């Protein structure tokens, strides 16, 4: 087990280093480099040269990389050109909102996907199974912003059941968990609905596999009701791969968060990234991109470790 953890951790570390290299290269792909981006409309050849000197951009690229990495290690992601604030403090205020949104979406998706998959796996190839599979297929292909827009149009604008967007009523500040939950329900449910499609589809297939295993016949033979056998044996085994799937879904989940936050004007990491991209605010863009990528790598690592804990067979593979 220790060997497995070590091996996977080292792999993830290499991946994180690779991610920093890619992000760094992206900074330097900018036409004229970062100094050009900082100067923006104030660009003159003279100013560019001076700023290049000041920022150390005349040094060789690999040296610049290590300087950048050293800053990064100290939690310095640079200053936002637009907000005139450190990127870290922008992220600090946006991150909790996104974590709430994404976390709630994952819970909702699992809460809906598991019963749905059980329902379908117990009646395979019936009309109800086909209808749900088709519905699932449409959700799988659904653009998040379409579903979100429709939800806003009918549930927020036409029927005032939910707020149109934001995390709190206009002007309000503070923790007010009730209001925050009320504001996050529509965006998180939108995200959950598109995420659940892939999961319940996968879970249905793995439940169908589990239902015909020998241990199910044994469980039924010793007198367990179908319900108990499904819950205690089939579901437990079928849920295992979902752990990995959760890890693999992280890039899509993060992408979904970006779009949902832009639909609902929800001030989280995705909104920050979106605004940054529209205003060419490169330190913000790269800071958020770096954090999102590192979060994906760590999430995948955690998923693999959880899987190894839950299923001892994997450790010896």
């Amino acid at each position: 087990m220790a060997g497995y953890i070590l091996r996977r951790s080292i792999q993830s570390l290499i991946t994180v280093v690779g991610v920093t290299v890619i992000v760094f290269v992206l900074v330097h792909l900018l036409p004229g480099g970062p100094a050009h981006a900082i100067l923006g409309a104030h660009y003159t050849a003279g100013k560019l040269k001076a700023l290049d000197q000041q920022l150390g951009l005349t040094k060789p690229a690999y040296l610049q990389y290590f300087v950048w990495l050293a800053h990064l290690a100290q939690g310095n992601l640079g200053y936002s050109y637009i907000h005139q604030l450190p990127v870290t403090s922008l992220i600090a205020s946006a991150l909790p909102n996104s974590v709430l949104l994404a976390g709630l979406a994952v819970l909702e998706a699992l809460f809906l996907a598991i019963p749905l998959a059980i329902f379908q796996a117990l009646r395979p190839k019936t009309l109800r199974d086909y209808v749900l599979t088709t519905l699932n297929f449409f959700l799988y292909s659904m653009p998040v912003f379409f579903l979100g827009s429709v939800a806003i149009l009918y549930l927020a604008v036409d029927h005032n059941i939910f707020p149109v967007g934001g995390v709190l009523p206009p002007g309000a500040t503070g923790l007010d968990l009730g209001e925050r939950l009320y504001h996050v329900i529509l965006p998180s449910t939108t995200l959950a609905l598109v995420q659940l499609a892939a999961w319940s589809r996968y879970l249905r297939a793995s439940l169908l596999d589990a239902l015909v295993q020998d241990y199910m016949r044994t469980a039924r033979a010793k007198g367990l009701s179908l319900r108990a056998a499904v819950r205690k044996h089939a579901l437990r085994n079928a849920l295992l791969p979902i752990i990995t799937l959760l890890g693999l879904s992280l890039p899509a989940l993060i992408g979904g968060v970006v779009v949902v936050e832009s639909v609902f004007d929800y001030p989280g990491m995705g909104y920050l990234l979106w605004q940054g991209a529209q205003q060419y605010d490169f330190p913000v863009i790269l800071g958020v991109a770096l954090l999102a990528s590192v979060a994906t790598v760590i999430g995948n690592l955690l998923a693999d470790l959880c899987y190894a804990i839950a299923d001892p067979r994997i450790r010896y593979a």
Partner: protein
Amino acid sequence: MHRPADVDVEVGFSRPAGSGVMKRFMRNRSALLAVVVIVLIAGFSFLGPLVYRTGPNAVDPSSILAGPSSLHPLGTDGVGRDVLARLMFGGRISLIVGVLAAVLGVVTGMVYGAIAGVFGGIVDALLMRLADIVLSLPVLVLLIVLSAEFRPSELMMVVVIGLTTWPVPARLVRGETLSLMQREFVQAAHQMGARRGWTIFRHILPNTVGTIVVNATFQVADAILLIAYLSYLGLGIPPPAPTWGGILTDGLTYLYEGTWWLIWAPGLAILVTVVAFNYLGDALRDAFDLRFERAGRIV
């Protein structure tokens, strides 16, 4: 290399790649439906403007944000442009850019994966490590970064999407390559002194055609979705180009005017197109008798 015709059929457990695919595909009625839908969407986008002659950027100042009427069957947007016309031209962008981006991503990925599999060892380890790194980046975030740097033209969009979506086909093709490398005909070619480049293009890639075709179909669906996401976010092909995502953004801007047609028309267009390609991919996968599961949505 010359092959006598009578040994064309491989013996034993393996069928020649592609046998019976067409038959199985034609039997699948929902697959045919998907093909019909795709043909209809292509017809709507490419032939539609020949019949419906309103321009996508023609402004009708007398009807701004007008609902569907006989003059504008799908209404108009915030500056009085006809939504139906924009939908047709937006379809051209989605289909052309989507297909080309998918082709670029798949071709890059399959050559990459085959090289990794055929060379093996340290080359394989390094190449697949890089693929893992790119795969662990959230595609949409990467695309946002790239499109903030180069406001994408249609061509740039193809390149940018191709550059971010190659790892999935690369991994699939590498997996198949590794098992093909053990097969007699590849080993025989190797014994006869075939160079690796020859092996890749003559023996490996032709035998992964099923995987490639199926994956490419899914990639078209993903690319169309990604294009829509970027244009929705205002980071795609810049206005006044008519994009499906862009029309929907307009719909959200004028939400309080109750402009439902600006949301439903482009939203359904994207949904139906993506569903059709995903359905087609599933059906092709069944027809080729492949068993790879997708990890989930791209976004």
